[in-house]
């Protein structure tokens, strides 16, 4: 330390030190603020979706007194009997003062058109009800629902709201009798799409998504892994494999709508696979996720240390045994993660499915891969396009369901990675 040159160097280093620390601090602040910004966007997104979406999980119901007249309803004619008329007559009995044609129409409007199907189901389940009078909760129309959820302002002039003064009086009377109630909206989770918001549910779209992803997974995972293993472990490294590699990377970057057009041309027009079905949707999404899975699988194969390969070959394992016994088990967690991320991608994909007709309005819940179906993101798209106010909250609710599935899938990816990761 006595050496003056030495001391000079140390001084110089110390001078530069504070500048270096400043740079580091600056960088940290940038990083932290970037994360903060991203988080605040996320919070904004979630809070806006949740604040509108949670209401869709409740639905307003109205209790009406129903007399199942044995003259009209018998065990035999339940499927053809006039249930809409039953509701109308019941309402007329409850509101005898409503006589004019227009007023009656307004009165009937309060109850959802789906209520008659509900009554049919009730009666089919329990034919003993014929001949009795029952108090039955039926879903209210979406505008009534909106009123009770505070989305229709009573104080506005009558002409500017979708519930008129008469209807308000009737509803107030029903409320006073305790005949209006908000209940858990189970039909949102059990029914297919509908023109009536209060009847529309996501079960159809969920099943559609499930079948579509099933096809996608069962095709793209084995194909992707096989392609990756071949390219990484068996293929000679030459110009051809280079070209293939570049093109796989290109495919991963192709806009998804292009896959939709390709699917339309190839699967529907050429092979004649029925349109709007999970089968054709799954095929299109397979084309889309395949490159993602191949790239992820190759990366995780590359990360398996070569010493393991040498060890296996060194005691006389064949190449196939080396791959199957040693390399694949080590690469599998990475492959699964990549696959699940690809699947999550496919679950959220809309554009290519529009091209192959999965955007059709489909009421029936699909029961197989060849039934016409739609998927969750397309359902969201359809609902967000509908003019009814009540569809808005259903859009948000459907987004919540979709996000829940995505979170589940990502959690599964993390779990699988942790579970199958082999510690050194």
């Amino acid at each position, binding site marked *: 330390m006595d050496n003056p040159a030495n001391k000079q160097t140390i001084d110089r280093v110390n001078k530069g030190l504070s500048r270096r620390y400043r740079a580091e601090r600056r960088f940290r602040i940038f990083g932290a603020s970037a994360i903060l910004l991203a988080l605040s966007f996320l919070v904004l997104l979630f809070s806006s979706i949740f604040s509108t979406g949670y209401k869709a999980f409740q639905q307003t119901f109205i209790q009406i007194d129903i007399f199942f007249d044995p003259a009209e309803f018998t065990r035999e004619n339940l499927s053809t009997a006039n249930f809409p008329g039953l509701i109308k007559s019941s309402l007329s009995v409850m509101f005898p003062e409503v006589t004019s044609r227009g007023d009656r129409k307004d009165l009937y409007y309060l109850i959802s058109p789906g209520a008659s199907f509900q009554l049919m189901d009730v009666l089919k389940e329990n034919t003993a009800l014929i001949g009795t009078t029952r108090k039955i909760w039926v879903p209210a129309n979406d505008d009534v629902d909106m009123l009770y959820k505070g989305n229709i302002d009573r104080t506005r002039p009558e002409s500017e709201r979708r519930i008129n003064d008469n209807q308000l009086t009737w509803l107030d009377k029903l409320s006073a009798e305790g005949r209006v109630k908000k209940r858990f909206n189970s039909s949102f989770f059990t029914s297919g799409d509908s023109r009536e918001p209060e009847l529309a549910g996501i079960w159809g779209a969920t099943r559609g998504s499930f079948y579509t992803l099933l096809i996608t997974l069962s095709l793209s995972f084995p194909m992707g892994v096989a392609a990756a293993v071949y390219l990484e472990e068996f293929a000679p490294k030459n110009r051809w494999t280079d070209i293939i590699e570049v093109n796989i990377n290109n495919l991963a970057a192709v806009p998804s709508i292009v896959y939709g057009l390709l699917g339309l041309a190839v699967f529907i027009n050429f092979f004649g696979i029925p349109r709007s079905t999970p089968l054709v949707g799954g095929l299109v999404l397979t084309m889309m996720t395949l490159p993602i899975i191949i790239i992820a699988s190759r990366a995780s194969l590359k990360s398996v240390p070569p010493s393991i*390969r*040498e*060890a296996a070959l060194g*005691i*006389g394992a*064949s190449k196939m045994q080396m791959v199957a016994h*040693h390399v694949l088990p080590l690469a599998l967690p990475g492959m699964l993660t990549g696959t699940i991320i690809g699947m999550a991608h496919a679950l959220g994909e809309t554009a290519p499915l529009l091209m192959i007709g999965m955007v059709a309005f489909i009421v029936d819940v699909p029961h197989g891969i060849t039934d016409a179906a739609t998927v969750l993101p397309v359902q969201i798209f359809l609902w967000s396009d509908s003019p009814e106010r009540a569809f808005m909250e259903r859009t948000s609710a459907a987004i919540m369901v979709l996000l829940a599935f995505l979170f589940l899938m990502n959690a599964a990816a993390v779990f699988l990675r942790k579970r199958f990761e082999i510690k050194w």
Partner: protein
Amino acid sequence: MESFLEVTDTVYLSLHQKDTILPDTKGKTLHKERETVGKPFVENPRMTCREVNVYYGEKRAINDVSIDIAHNEVIAMIGPSGCGKSTFLRCLNRMNDTVEGCRVTGDIRLDGMDIHDKSVDVVPLRARIGMVFQKPNPFPKSIFDNIAYGPKIHGLAQNKSELNEIVETSLHKAGLWNEVKDRLQQPGTGLSGGQQQRLCIARAIAVSPEVILMDEPCSALDPIATAKIEELIAELCEQYSIVIVTHSMQQAARVSQRTAYFHLGDLIEVGRTDRVFTNPSHQLTEDYITGRFG
């Protein structure tokens, strides 16, 4: 330290008992460009290599190397870094086949069988010529499975008890049995570095090879673990031929009966270890041994 002395003693004794190694002569080799001095050939060899050349793409990494490997001997390969020791070693069990762009020419025989012959399958060949690598590379499986893997894929055990026996004898031979007998089901990667390397040796032994190739097996180990491996090598040469690449000349002197010195892809000198280290015939060998370069 006591065991250390023991090691050197055993080696010293066995060195004088070996009679398969011929006395040094100034006999010529088949070498074309640079002659190998010393005595690269033996009577009744286990492996013979004649005019072996190895190319990485255009680059030639091994030039016309001819050498024999005797039965039950330890032959050490020394030489400066990058001179092709590992490359040559990997020719012997055709591990170079797996290296992209690597080409091997020349004639290599195991017990008279040309290992490059079309009728020879590399899979059983690698079972007959085992390999231990520089860095211990146990499979990320249990200790038992590490050893049992080779016998399993080659179908060496008829049933479970035979397999258990193979595992136990291999671990005994590798001097690891007492240390791991209570934890056979624990991962092999959880052992210490030296234990892992002995596990790898046990794994190679388990398929009953004839030759064991070792590429700097002790370079990642501390002196105590190294002494254990050296002791093991001295014992193993009773049954196997061992080719060991090492950077430590002391190690070569301690464990081997013959030493081969490589320089820039050429085999410069081969001879009895004591002779090569005390009285090298080639200038390059002398320079390397006396530490003038390398």
